[in-house]
């Protein structure tokens, strides 16, 4: 899943520097990171929920509305032509970003959840029958769990789970016993939003292909943080969302293999998804517009293009390398400073994304979230839309710090100081 880092052909291995980035410099591009909360400069560590947006993305949004706002695909005037071009250019940028064969396979949705629901409605309902099995992992977000659970209930199919090992990794041995002849769909996350666990997608794909199952990858966490090639991973569907990768809210993507998408009926009916309409019948538009009924989220799609430009400028290999480094630093410091912290999931930064879920000093995650906010450190607390996983872990919730390209080691230090302060305010919890 992680592409080889670039190596210079004629340099010896020692001389090759891993590509990295300057997080402090990048942070300058994000206006919100200058904000003060409770008298302290914001330390934003809730990136797994949503990322912040660079000035270029915010400007792309206002520039569209100030300069060429128009509906797309139909108008013959300049504004509409410019808007259509910018909208379709973003589709092509996305194609390149995920290394897909054709931009016809890139469908805009509202978010990753809608992308998964599109597959459920247009493919799942026609292919998953009574007696069939759908396989997901024990660490899915509700969006890739409730969906398939409900489809299975509706169709009389069975939902089965790839379990996790003690240290929060995918149990490939067990996976091999779960994926079988009855498996019609394997729907898995690329990276856990709770544990940070990176799924060994290729190994799972191998198991699924051997049984002729279709593979959906939930890239909501993976695509923003890992170099992702759908060609290399050989999945059938990929769902992700732009607000977690520097873009605005309201733009998701479903990528699917053309041969599957061609055969799927539309998800929604209406304007723009048609090629000709008669009183009693309609011929649907071709890919990808067949799946994009109604006026889409033009402005936010265009601004998502600016988000891709920003990420491409840094390079996804450097993004990944930075997150390995900051996660390594954070794990080392947290474990060194506190003996009453419990970290969930893998502790090898090479095996996980920049997500650290933890419980601390017997302080309830909500109290902890609130106390850290006093020091302007924004983390998330709760079940993270993964209630079944919380049950498996035996907790009602965790605190979660998650990193992105603008987070520095100094942010980690501030987190540590804030944790120390939280413990002081709360006192040592006695007798419960």
């Amino acid at each position, binding site marked *: 899943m992680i592409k080889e880092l670039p190596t210079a052909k004629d340099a010896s291995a020692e001389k090759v520097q891993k590509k990295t980035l300057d997080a402090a410099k990048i942070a300058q591009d994000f206006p919100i990171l200058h904000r003060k909360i409770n008298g302290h400069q914001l330390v934003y560590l809730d990136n797994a929920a949503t990322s912040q947006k660079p000035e270029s993305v915010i400007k792309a949004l206002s520039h569209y509305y100030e300069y060429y706002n128009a509906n797309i695909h139909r108008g013959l005037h300049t504004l509409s032509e410019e808007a259509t071009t910018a909208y379709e250019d973003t589709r092509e940028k996305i194609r390149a970003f995920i290394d897909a064969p054709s931009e016809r396979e890139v469908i805009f949705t509202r978010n990753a959840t809608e992308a998964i629901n599109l597959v459920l409605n247009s493919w799942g309902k026609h292919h998953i029958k009574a007696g069939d099995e759908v396989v997901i992992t024990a660490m899915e977000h509700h969006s890739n769990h409730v969906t398939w659970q409900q489809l299975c209930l509706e169709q009389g199919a069975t939902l089965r789970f790839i379990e996790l090992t003690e240290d929060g990794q995918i149990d490939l041995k067990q996976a091999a016993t779960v994926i079988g002849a009855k498996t019609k769909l394997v729907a898995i996350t690329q990276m856990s939003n709770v544990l940070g666990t990176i799924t060994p997608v290729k190994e799972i794909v191998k198991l699924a292909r051997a049984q002729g199952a279709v593979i959906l990858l939930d890239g909501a966490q993976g695509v923003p943080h890992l170099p992702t090639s759908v060609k290399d991973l050989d999945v059938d569907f990929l769902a992700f969302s732009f607000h977690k990768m520097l873009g605005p809210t309201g733009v998701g993507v479903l990528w699917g293999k053309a041969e599957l998408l061609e055969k799927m009926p539309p998800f929604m009916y209406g304007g723009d998804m048609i090629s000709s309409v008669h009183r009693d019948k309609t011929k649907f538009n071709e890919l990808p517009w067949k799946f994009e009924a109604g006026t889409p989220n033009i402005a936010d799609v265009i601004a998502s293009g600016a988000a891709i430009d920003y990420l491409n400028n840094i390079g996804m290999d450097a993004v990944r390398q930075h997150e390995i480094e900051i996660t390594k630093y954070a794990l080392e410091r947290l474990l060194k400073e506190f003996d009453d912290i419990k970290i969930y999931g893998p502790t090898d930064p090479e095996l996980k994304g920049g997500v650290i879920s933890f419980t601390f000093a017997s302080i309830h995650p909500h*109290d902890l979230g609130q106390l850290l906010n006093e020091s302007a450190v924004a983390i998330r607390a709760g079940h993270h839309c993964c209630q079944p996983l919380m049950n498996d872990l035996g907790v009602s919730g965790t605190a979660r710090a998650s990193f992105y390209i603008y987070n520095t080691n100094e942010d980690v230090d501030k987190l540590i100081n804030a944790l120390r302060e939280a413990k002081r305010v709360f*006192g040592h919890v006695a007798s419960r």
Partner: protein
Amino acid sequence: MSLADDLYRETILDHYHNPRNHGVIETPSARVEGVNPLCGDELTLYLIVEDGKIKDVKLEAKGCSINTASGSMMTEVIVGKTLEEAHEIINTFKDMMMNKTKTDVELPEDLEDLEALQGVKKYPVRIKCALLPWNTLIEGIETAEGKR
């Protein structure tokens, strides 16, 4: 005012660290569960109601400090009360927590501890943590009265 003054006052932390009436009643008149699906607070309330009075109450709570402290204080003020009195206390408390126009409410002496929870009002997302035990109690009383 700091967070510690608003939210984590000594009274609250005391009830959190040593919740009163914590536990189980084997044969209650009502046993009801309350959950806050957004943040994962969970509690089970046990009531013994006899002759229109709350004879005993126990709470098993798995929640944050606000939730636990609010529940602990609640059990202290309702035990021994008639159902009518209990309803009055519930209404007084909910009004204090939900009525935005009222600040620094002073409660009768026997309900004094509850005043400490007013600070929660400044943090809207936490109000539901404080209310959960009370809403569960309403359900518990209705169950004991056979209305549910």
